[in-house]
């Protein structure tokens, strides 16, 4: 056996490529690919469109959007809430579809397994890549939302909560950050489930169809009164909780329970993906 080079981590005698190098390579690949950049660019347009729409309209639309007028820091939260319905899950699912099914269809998964990268490490690297897309997507919506809110809508001096109180600009931004972090958690759950599907197929389109189909079916199920008992099981049930960051004092109940539910989906998704990827023929 050739002696492994000094900077090569090893366990049980098997030489392994350094994890940081694998992660750097994966993040480069994920964030530099054209479709990711296009998706991030389009997501960044969402808050701009909402902002422009509100400024141009005489009377703002219904729901959360009524709160945005003259209250710029609510814009990023509204944009996150609207994007979470479909656009953000779509972006994350796309990344997860490319992560395993896409690599497999290009024949590049084989190369990684032959290097070799152990299948457990491969899943870990891929999960980090998908999470990176989730974070980048949410950051794009939130950051452009804050900028648009301040520049177009105005009201940078604070945030008017749904409860009627006024928060300073610092705590306003903190609320936006909380909404963003919570959204990343929900997207991580979707990403994990999508990775599980991705580990079981060679066709990225199947991943997209199954995962987004699932999100839509969940939405339908939660709308049926007869299936109310199912509510606690559905990931989408807690998605209204994002509005809670606009209340004062902050009610943590729903935010926490929906995050907890996302954690369960995350664990189940990753466990299924791991089980599948270790037996998969590449």
């Amino acid at each position, binding site marked *: 056996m050739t002696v492994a080079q000094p900077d090569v981590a090893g366990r049980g005698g098997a030489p392994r490529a350094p994890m940081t190098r694998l992660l750097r*390579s994966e993040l480069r690949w994920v964030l530099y690919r054209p479709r990711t950049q296009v998706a991030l660019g389009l997501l960044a347009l969402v808050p701009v469109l909402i902002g422009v729409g509100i400024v141009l309209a005489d009377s703002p639309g219904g729901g959360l959007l009524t709160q945005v007028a003259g209250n710029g820091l609510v814009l990023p939260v509204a944009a996150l809430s609207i994007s979470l319905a479909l656009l953000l899950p779509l972006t994350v699912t796309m990344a997860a579809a490319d992560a395993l099914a896409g690599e497999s269809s290009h024949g*590049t998964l*084989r190369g990684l*397994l032959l290097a070799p990268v152990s299948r457990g490490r491969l899943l870990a690297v891929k999960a980090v890549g998908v999470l990176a897309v989730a974070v980048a997507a949410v950051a794009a919506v939130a950051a452009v939302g804050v900028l648009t809110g301040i520049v177009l809508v105005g009201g940078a001096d604070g945030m008017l909560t749904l409860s009627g109180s006024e928060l300073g600009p610092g705590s306003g931004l903190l609320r936006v950050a909380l909404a963003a972090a919570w959204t990343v958690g929900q997207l991580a759950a979707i990403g994990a489930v999508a990775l599980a599907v991705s580990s079981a197929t060679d066709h990225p389109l199947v991943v997209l169809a199954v995962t987004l189909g699932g999100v839509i079916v969940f939405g339908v199920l939660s709308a049926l009164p007869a299936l109310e008992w199912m509510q606690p099981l559905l990931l989408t049930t807690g998605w209204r909780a994002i509005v809670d960051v606009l209340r004062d004092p902050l009610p943590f109940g729903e935010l926490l329970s929906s995050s907890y539910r996302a954690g369960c989906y995350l664990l189940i998704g990753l466990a299924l993906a791991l089980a599948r990827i270790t037996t998969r023929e590449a």
Partner: protein
Amino acid sequence: MTAGSAIASTMRVDEATAAAAIRVRGLRKTFGHTVAVAAVDLDVPAGAVLGMLGPNGSGKTTMIRMLLALSRPTAGSVELLGSPVPSDAGQVLPHVGALVEGPGFHPFLSGRENLRRAAAAEPLLATAAVPGAVDDALARVGLSAAAGRRYRAYSMGMKQRLGLAAALLVPRRLVVLDEPTNGLDPAGTREVRRIVAELHGAGTTVLVSSHLLAEVEATCTHVAVLAEGSLITSGPLAALLDGDAPLLDVATPDVESALDALCSESVGASAVPGGVRVELIGIDAASVVASLVRAGVAVHEARRARAGLDELFAQLTEGDR
């Protein structure tokens, strides 16, 4: 058939065990009711260049995939460089370079970026050595000039070369190339032969699969012939080529008079399209040609017919299928 014994039996058993770069026992793979590989035994001595010959669909790629732990055998065992696979794949695969089922790369990255990505996963490559190893591998396959172009703009031959470069990123002890000359022009084919010869010269064991006998004859020291998932024969190339009675193919328009002349000297011969085939028993090729010329037969060409492998392979690939 207990194939592979032809190679191993020439050595003492312990020597064979120590020197086998690939050791396969009872390897079998089924997909449902289809038997892709049926009970193959094979030994490849370290330092050999094994040509794995077989028509399309004979189980070459399935077998290579099992050797490389990409696919689990239904039954049987595989040892690469002395380590059992797939259980010790993590130990042995860093020393193995492979091009399997065509090159696999990302279309939106350049050739160099694709190789960098592959190099990042190579356990035996120090991080500081990655850029150098990538440039060396690109130079070795003649892609330095096109390294900055996107993979999607590559021709088929360039894609194949990049796949070869990925297998050569690290000095390997075993290199497995599945149909490496697919899509290459004659110059590219010669280059692959040169690379295989270089690897052989450096003591690397090479496994090349091909459906072209000429390809294998040009580069290999050993041959294994697969058909319908079974190993038909295997052994050193020279032994297989000269396995049967040596034959001489003589190209001549005067078939009748040639047969008469040879018959009068009690040399076995038969008519074949474009000439006669002479059995070289008790007579050498030069004497045959001399006696034909003495008999006034026009000899256009005379060459040794490599009966064994040639015939076998012709039967396999052109037979009734």
